[in-house]
């Protein structure tokens, strides 16, 4: 396979993953605004930070309003992580690697783009938001379904999956990092309604508020939330789960090519650490430092994969 094709697949799936995550962040933000007795624009500050576009927002807007924040996250082309920018970039990459995709996967991606472009051609009204969020999730689901149902499990599949999980790990780590202070035991006034809203919004940002209850006590607890999103290998958006997938897909490539790169070492090492370190240990050492480290290490792995497989 061409290095450029591997690169295109990797980014196609990173962008699609990011589009869905951006939609989820907006969803969590909307939810938070609803459950608050007095809505505050400050909630959107956290959402923009989680999306990693807080500073970019200020370059485009003078003040922070919920309407502008939603529009910025949803459809502003000036924001490369907006849902529309991501879908467009994902589809652009899909078009570039078209020969590597099944017809179903390509069509699902193209139709996602065509529908979102039509829906997001003008500013969304607040009343339309639930339907828009729903459409994004459904469209992303259709791409995923077509991909899983029709693609051969070969190197094309592996590079696509690696893109998905590098992006997902980055997003989850970032969401946690933005809210790390509400998870600190010292600050946590357990049981206050304020914290409950914040904690729930973290879980909602990764669509895990229901699943949390299946795994832990129904009552929200900061260390359990952190454990769920960092170490729980069964939670599909946790760092541990993402690294299981990254390592196994890199493993397939290693066997197929008979070649091991720096990326393999890094992924295996990270996975081993995720498996062995307890959440108490991580929180004792400093959650913020841990997550910062993780995010930069995750970026480095992306670069190592790109070098090892001659993306450019």
């Amino acid at each position, binding site marked *: 396979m*061409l*290095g*450029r094709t591997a690169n295109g697949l990797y980014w196609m799936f990173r962008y699609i993953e990011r589009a869905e995550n951006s939609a989820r962040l907006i969803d969590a933000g909307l939810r938070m605004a609803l459950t608050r007795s007095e809505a505050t624009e400050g909630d959107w500050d956290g959402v923009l930070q989680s999306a990693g576009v807080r500073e970019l927002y200020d370059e485009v807007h003078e003040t922070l309003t919920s309407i502008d924040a939603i529009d910025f996250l949803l459809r502003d082309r000036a924001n490369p992580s907006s849902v529309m920018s991501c879908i467009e970039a994902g589809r652009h990459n899909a*078009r570039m690697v*078209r*020969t590597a995709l099944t017809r179903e996967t390509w069509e699902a991606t193209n139709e996602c783009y*065509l529908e979102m472009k039509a829906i997001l051609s003008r500013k969304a009204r607040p009343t339309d938001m639930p339907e828009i969020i729903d459409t994004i999730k459904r469209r992303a689901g259709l791409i995923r379904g077509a991909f899983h149902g029709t693609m051969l499990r070969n190197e094309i599949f592996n590079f696509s999956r690696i893109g998905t999980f590098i992006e997902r790990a980055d997003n989850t780590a970032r969401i946690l990092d933005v809210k790390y202070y509400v998870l600190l035991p010292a600050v946590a006034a357990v049981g206050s309604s304020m914290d409950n809203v914040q904690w729930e919004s973290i879980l909602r940002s990764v669509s895990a508020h229901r699943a949390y209850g299946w795994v832990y006590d129904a009552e929200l607890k900061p260390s359990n939330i952190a454990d769920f999103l960092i170490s729980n290998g069964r939670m599909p958006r946790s760092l541990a789960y993402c690294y299981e997938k990254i390592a196994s897909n890199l493993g397939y490539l290693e066997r197929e*090519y008979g*070649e091991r790169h720096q990326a393999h070492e890094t992924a295996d090492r990270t996975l081993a650490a995720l498996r062995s370190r307890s959440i108490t240990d991580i929180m004792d050492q400093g959650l913020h430092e841990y997550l910062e480290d993780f995010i930069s290490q995750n970026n480095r792995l992306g670069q190592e994969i790109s070098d090892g497989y*001659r993306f450019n």
Partner: protein
Amino acid sequence: MVENKGTTPLAFDEMMNADSSPRQPYSTYHEWYASQDRNRLIAKSKDAENIFRKTGITFAVYGHADSSEKLIPFDLIPRIISGREWRKLAQGIEQRVIALNAFLDDIYHKQEIIRAGRVPRELIEKNVAFLPQMIGFRPPGGVYTHIVGTDIVRTGEDQFYVLEDNARTPSGVSYMLENRETMMQMFPELFHQNRVRPVENYPNLLRQSLASLAPPGCSGKPRVAVLTPGIYNSAYYEHAFLADMMGVELVEGSDLRVIDGKVKMRTTRGYEAIDVLYRRVDDDFLDPLTFRPESALGVPGIMDVYRAGNITIANAPGTGISDDKAIYSYMPEIVEFYTGRKPLLENVPTWRCSEPQSLKYVLEHLEELVVKEVHGSGGYGMLVGPTASKKERALFAEKLKARPTNYIAQPTLSLSTVPILVNKGIAPRHVDLRPYVLVSDKVQIIPGGLTRVALKAGSLVVNSSQGGGTKDTWVLED
């Protein structure tokens, strides 16, 4: 000629006779059509559009900033050619393609046709499409034009003309294949009732044909790749489609490098050699070391690899000269010179504006003629005299006088019509035909091709860049 009113009064309609009975090749189809509910057909027509949009069968129109991807309108009434008509066409096309290859080989070697005084020397040697780098070099198998798309127009029951030879990089074959696929999905019953010759095998034949012309330096199974200028090229969809259907890599210039005397592509496992390159990049951009130095679309040094016999480039560089419309005007002489026979298919009579007598005639008869640039294509930069305004004609006359050698003129042919589906039923529209030809040690003509149709009543311009549409093209067994 009546403007904007129906069609040219005397145009030959391929479906209906003057007495409103269907012509023979259309008789089965016509019976089916008569039994159809019009609303159902119109609904199907929308379905087809959705299929094309969803599949991403789009092209780019240059100069339209906001419309980077357009659909080519598809009309669901097929264009039907009888087996007898096809045999006649196929023989004529084969003769012409053989002559073209012989001509290209000759002008890059002994130039006998020039010495025989049949074609003027300056027309060849001063032609921008003539590549001195090809002099004395013979491509693998002696084939210059691996893929040809001969444009044919029809004016009567037995009158066919070749309008253009398109020996450089004919496009549109993906539409031939997708149109057929769409028709078979929408109206499977039609393919039970009519014995339509298949075109689906084209990608396979193309791959075999390309692989059979691997260079001498290739050992083992030849590796074929399609070279595209990239995602922003107007025909990118087709490039991806063909690579996909052939099961070969779609590469861009930036993927390729010359290493150890071979052209290699950068893969996830390192560099791997390519033996046959089906390039959809123009000569000028192919090798920045040999041609345009600023080109980022090509491969530095590929021409040296080519000349050393380590890669096959299809079509061969320097082939474009045969698409020159001034050369076209010599095609009857060219065919006769190399095949020893009169051309089976006629040329459209052509005035070379470089000749003073002709220029005078053309200027005096602008309102009857179609004037084209000798290097033009895609319907850009041409004047259709009868439908142009007085002002447009006057402006064009100035251009013509300023650079007469840049133009040729042809009579406005009354192109045949085939009906298209419109809201009120069907209405005749002018069409042309581009069959696709593969050349290796044999000449294979795919039974079918791309029928382009002008969608505006009376319009003779069928180019998709100018708002034309396409039809599925059937060649019947008989």
